[in-house]
């Protein structure tokens, strides 16, 4: 049975149980994964035919859902019955929760088989180069994946979307060392369309390893400073995730308690700051062509020239709150480049820090956020100073956006985002 027939079967099964409205998302993938620990590959794992079928049915406007991991038809039939059973205790809710306009689309083509030899070669090549070029850096863990995926969305309104994707993902954890002394763990993760480029030459990999060697001997400034924080692109991605989760996600918006609930078309950031979610950007290693409620995904402005232009209210949240429906399913953040080089940004900081990793709490509804700046260097009088130890950063996400002082001309594409360095003023550094 082909994958689209399995999803059809699941949708029909829900209808046969009495669902007036229903949607099914089937995801079918195979992943090949290499894991290296302490510099040597120790595992080759294949996750064959990983299947996820998410079924959601509405029975007299009462919703029931289930997720199963097999395409066995008898299990699908049982799952449809569970959806019906699950809906029985639910309160009827007529709010629309999925695309109700028919659309049929296919994105991409079925992917190729992996070149396991090349996967192993590129991984060993990187591990050997790292040992040779950065003898004082230990690659603690490296995970290299190749995933091929077919994803199918269907609902009872005639929405029928199929997406084929294949992507390489690399996640490296490393630390510098000097005898028994070690630096804090660094991590660097990115996605690739292919393995044509040696991993050492991708994005900021080499720069990050070189920095790790300088992070073994750390220092802590004795006094609190209210100064500038330069956020690196990979760290900025974490801050953006916190921002969206606290202010712009369906969960933040549906309860009515988000700080951005009534902020559309108002100023929420500095004039020089724009933020987009671009799931269709062809420069990304992979794309996301549809949302989880069955709409064709589009690139979306979140903030343009400091003004809030869009959030991630799904169809249900939009109908509940009156907010516009999201165009993008989320993530794939892009911030246009600014007008200063990173060196110029550092040179303009009298007292501050450049932060590579943020180890902190989750921002709540207030946007208050504090945490430890990891893998970071102090900046003093316009120059990089010592590596920072146990240095706490305290910000509020709303203030952070309003206090952006500079954006770099350099941007870094990690396969699922394209971001610059940004400098933020008035940050409490302790």
């Amino acid at each position, binding site marked *: 049975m082909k994958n689209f027939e399995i999803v059809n079967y699941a949708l029909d099964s829900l209808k046969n149980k009495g669902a007036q409205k229903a949607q099914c998302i089937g995801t079918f993938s195979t992943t090949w994964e290499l894991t290296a620990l*302490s510099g*040597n*590959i120790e*595992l080759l*794992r*294949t996750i*064959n035919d990983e299947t996820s079928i*998410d079924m959601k049915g509405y029975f007299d406007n009462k*919703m029931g*859902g*289930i*997720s199963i*991991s*097999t*395409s*066995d038809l008898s*299990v699908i039939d049982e*799952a449809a019955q*569970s959806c019906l*059973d*699950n*809906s029985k*205790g*639910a*309160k009827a*809710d007529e*709010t629309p929760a999925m695309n109700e306009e028919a659309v049929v689309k296919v994105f991409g083509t079925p992917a190729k088989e992996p070149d396991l030899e090349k996967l*192993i070669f590129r991984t*060993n090549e990187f591990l050997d180069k790292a040992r040779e070029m950065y003898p004082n850096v230990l690659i*603690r*863990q490296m*995970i290299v994946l190749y995933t091929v995926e077919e994803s199918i969305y269907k609902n009872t309104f005639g929405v029928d979307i199929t997406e084929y994707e294949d992507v390489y993902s690399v996640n490296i954890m490393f630390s510098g060392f000097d005898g*028994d002394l*070690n630096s*804090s*763990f660094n991590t660097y993760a990115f996605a690739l369309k292919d393995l044509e480029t040696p991993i050492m030459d991708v994005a900021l990999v080499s720069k990050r390893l070189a920095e790790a060697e300088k992070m073994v001997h750390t220092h802590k400034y004795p006094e609190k400073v209210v100064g500038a924080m330069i956020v690196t692109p990979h760290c900025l991605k974490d801050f953006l995730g916190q921002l969206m989760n606290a202010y712009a996600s369906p*969960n933040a918006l*549906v*309860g*009515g*308690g*988000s*700080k951005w609930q009534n902020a559309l078309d108002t100023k929420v950031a500095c004039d020089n700051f724009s933020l987009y979610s671009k799931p269709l950007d062809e420069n990304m290693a992979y794309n996301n062509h549809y949302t989880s409620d069955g709409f064709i995904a589009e690139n979306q402005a979140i903030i343009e020239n400091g003004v809030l232009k869009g959030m991630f209210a799904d169809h*249900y949240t939009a109908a509940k709150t009156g907010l516009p429906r999201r165009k993008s399913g989320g993530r794939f953040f892009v911030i246009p480049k600014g007008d200063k080089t990173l060196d110029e940004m550092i040179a303009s900081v009298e007292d501050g820090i450049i932060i590579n990793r943020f*180890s*902190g*709490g989750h921002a*709540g*509804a*207030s946007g*208050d*956020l*504090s*945490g*430890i700046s*990891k893998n970071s260097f102090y900046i003093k009088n316009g120059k990089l100073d010592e590596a920072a130890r*146990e240095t*706490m*950063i*305290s910000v509020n996400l709303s203030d952070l956006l309003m206090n952006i002082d500079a954006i770099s001309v350099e941007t870094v594409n990690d396969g699922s985002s394209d971001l610059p360095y940004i400098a933020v003023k008035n940050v409490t550094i302790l």
Partner: protein
Amino acid sequence: MNIDILKPYLSGFNAPTELRAHTNYANNIMLTQGNIIVNSQSDISGIFARTYKDGIYGASSCPGFSEDAIKAALKGAQQNADILALTSKNKNYKLPDIPNGFMPAHTKFVKHPQSYLLDFVSQLDAHIANRYKDLASRTVHLIEQCTTVSLAVTEGYDVERVLPRVHIKIKLVAKDANGAPVDITGTLGGGGLFADHFKNPSDFDEQLDTLYNMLMDKRDGVYAKAGEHDLILDSALAGILAHEAVGHTVESDLIRGGSIAKSCRNQRVGSDLVTLIDFAHTALGETVPLPIYVDDEGTKAEDVIVIKDGILLDYMSNRFDAPLINTTPKGNGRAFNYKDEPIVRMRNTCIMPGKDKLEDMIKSTENGYYLISWGNGQADGTSEFMFGITMGYEIKDGKLGKAIRDTTLSGVAFDMLKTVTMIGDEIKWAANGTCGKKQPMGNAMGGPALKCRATLGGR
């Protein structure tokens, strides 16, 4: 699927090989403002096989429990081992011996109809809405999970395991004087079955009142003063301290990767008052929240005494790593999902209780903070740690003062534990947490209240 079905497929495998049938079952129900946002179940099942050859592992997984899935997983594991062994750099490395045996399951999972669970959550939500009229928003989120495993091995213990847990998270949001949202989250439940924890929604009035009152205090809260302070960590925080600040630092993969704990063995890392144990299945005469009798590598589980009277004694390890870090495998190799390989994980990690009363600990603090609940935490190989603090109070002249807004606690564990001067006499366990180290594994953590010094974020 039981062991008797799996075991025959291992005949012909002479190398260390594992064959695992694994199901993760979950119920997920979330109501926000009474609206059902999530009402779903998941049932993720499949076969995992792993075989060892010349210093490397080959592994493979397939969904479902069919004979084809079992055969394909075993064949894939062998093929991957054969491919990777060609470039292995540890061809002569041998895994340590482990004892053989069989361990049956210690409990059964009782499924409730989703409608029963939804009814309970709806009643609890209505109860909260009626009891606390001035909330800006409320969310009630139930997650019931059960992992069922049958593991057959060529070396070690075969095991059947059923490991349920359930919790309900309650998030309350209020507006402060400026109209800005302030939130707090509390958790009910723990290891075991739904019926072990939940009978009537009104049974939780005391906990709900405490949560609501703390939110009202937090609404008028102040920012903590950034810097190092005398702190009283509530027993609810001791568990995350055990897990994040110390536990990760002594996991064998981190030790191999340069954790500071590598050079601290048999050295003082805490005050005499500090003893920390990763329990396998029984602590202080009682079954722990998430008991592990045999891990997912077939190693019979034992406690790991990590710190005793302030001295670092041992590490947590899987079978592969144990000889490399001069210890023995004690059952810390755990896999989250059917597709996952076992990696080094904590089980029930706990700081042992002392003799002090919480009230006396607060009274003994002239200026500082009493920290009550946390949102998340992270660790580092340097033993630097951080926890997001979601509720706490100032302490002034031995008495509780104003509530504080969300902040972050940080420190260097092996320095901070040396500042522990008082330890409470009551342990609290939490079994609702999920550790995100590669796989989102459920862990239990526990401990008593502690008096110590560490750094708070703030203004």
